[in-house]
């Protein structure tokens, strides 16, 4: 270490002092380790070296600027750090994961714990129909609840619902898993038919069923003639939606359209070939054209990457 004057000094442990300084300097003499000088440079070195070994609990000899070790520690000096600093660094280490945990903690507190607290607090209040709090109600609301004649049936029904749903879900799921693990014709379609309701939002499904079962104008609750019309118009829109959805899926999973060799070989300075050749009649013996000449539509299978069209040797540069 060097002091403010650039002189080499020998440093040693000095954790016993209030500043936590780690070295005492010997100005102008590189080999006089261990001798403490009382000038201003020594104070500067103490302050500077106190940061260097803040996390290091070990005391020992420091190295001077020339690389030679200087035994600066005074014999018999206490080398342990103060307890307050140790506890502070331990607390800082414990708080280190907090920035990563904070979003989850905020979410749990805001979505889970705070509503529960509000719910419990509300159950002990007397609230009017207009929302005004009229004071504490104590346990009276719980007493009123226990006096509800429908409560036993409601609780029994809930318990039965939980048991039946859990058991039925496990049994049916295991059977379906066994079935879908076997090879049979149309297995992919069946798998998709199971996956789509799972992937669809519950809210979206609920809104659709609410619309289907609406008492006044729902598709399933209207008079037969109108219902038939509604269903037919609904079914008529499905193929169009499927086509649009397929085009969107093909585009999303790899573009779906890749340039032909001729288009790939086209210099950037020339216009695309597609526009000028779109209306050109097909040659004899060739199928009619769909879309532009310079492009070709290809199938895109999910999970399979689309290989790029190889360029001619002349264009590899």
């Amino acid at each position, binding site marked *: 270490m060097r002091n403010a004057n650039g002189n080499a000094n020998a440093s040693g442990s000095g954790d016993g002092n209030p500043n936590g300084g780690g070295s005492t300097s010997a100005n102008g003499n590189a080999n006089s380790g261990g001798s403490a000088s009382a000038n201003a440079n020594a104070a500067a070195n103490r302050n500077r070296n106190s940061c260097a070994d803040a996390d290091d609990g070990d005391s020992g000899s420091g190295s001077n600027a020339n690389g030679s070790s200087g035994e600066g520690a005074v014999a018999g000096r206490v080398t342990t750090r103060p307890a307050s600093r140790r506890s502070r660094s331990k607390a800082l280490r414990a708080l280190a994961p907090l920035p990563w945990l904070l979003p989850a903690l905020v979410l749990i507190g805001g979505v889970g714990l705070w509503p529960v607290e509000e*719910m419990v607090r*509300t*159950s002990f209040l007397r609230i009017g*129909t207009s929302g005004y709090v009229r004071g504490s109600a104590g346990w009276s*609301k719980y007493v*009123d609840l226990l006096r*509800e004649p*429908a409560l036993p049936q409601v*609780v029994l029904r*809930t318990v039965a619902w939980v048991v039946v749903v859990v058991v039925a879900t496990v049994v049916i799921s295991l059977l379906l898993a066994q079935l879908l693990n076997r090879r049979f014709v149309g297995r992919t379609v069946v798998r998709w038919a199971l996956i789509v309701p799972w992937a669809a939002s519950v809210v979206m499904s609920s809104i659709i069923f609410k619309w289907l079962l609406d008492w006044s104008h729902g598709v399933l609750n209207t008079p037969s003639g109108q219902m038939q019309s509604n269903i037919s118009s609904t079914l008529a829109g499905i193929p169009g939606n499927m086509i649009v959805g397929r085009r969107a899926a093909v585009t999303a999973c790899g573009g779906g359209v890749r340039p032909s060799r001729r288009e790939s070989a086209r210099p950037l300075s020339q216009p695309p070939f597609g526009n000028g050749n779109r209306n050109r009649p097909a040659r004899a013996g060739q199928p009619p054209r769909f879309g532009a000449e310079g492009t070709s539509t290809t199938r895109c299978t999910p999970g399979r990457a689309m290989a790029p069209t190889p360029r001619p040797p002349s264009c590899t540069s």
Partner: protein
Amino acid sequence: MYTGAGYGADTTTTFVHKLKDTDVDESAAMAVAKFALVVVFVLPYLKTSRWNEATA
């Protein structure tokens, strides 16, 4: 009060919703009871499933 046609299939969730229309405090009390019911089911499951033990 909440018996008869239209109330024969209520569970605790729908019962809380119906109580809310007439008495918010009692509805909150029912929600607390429902929360306690969920805890009664979940805690033994977590105790027996050893969810926090690492699998080899």
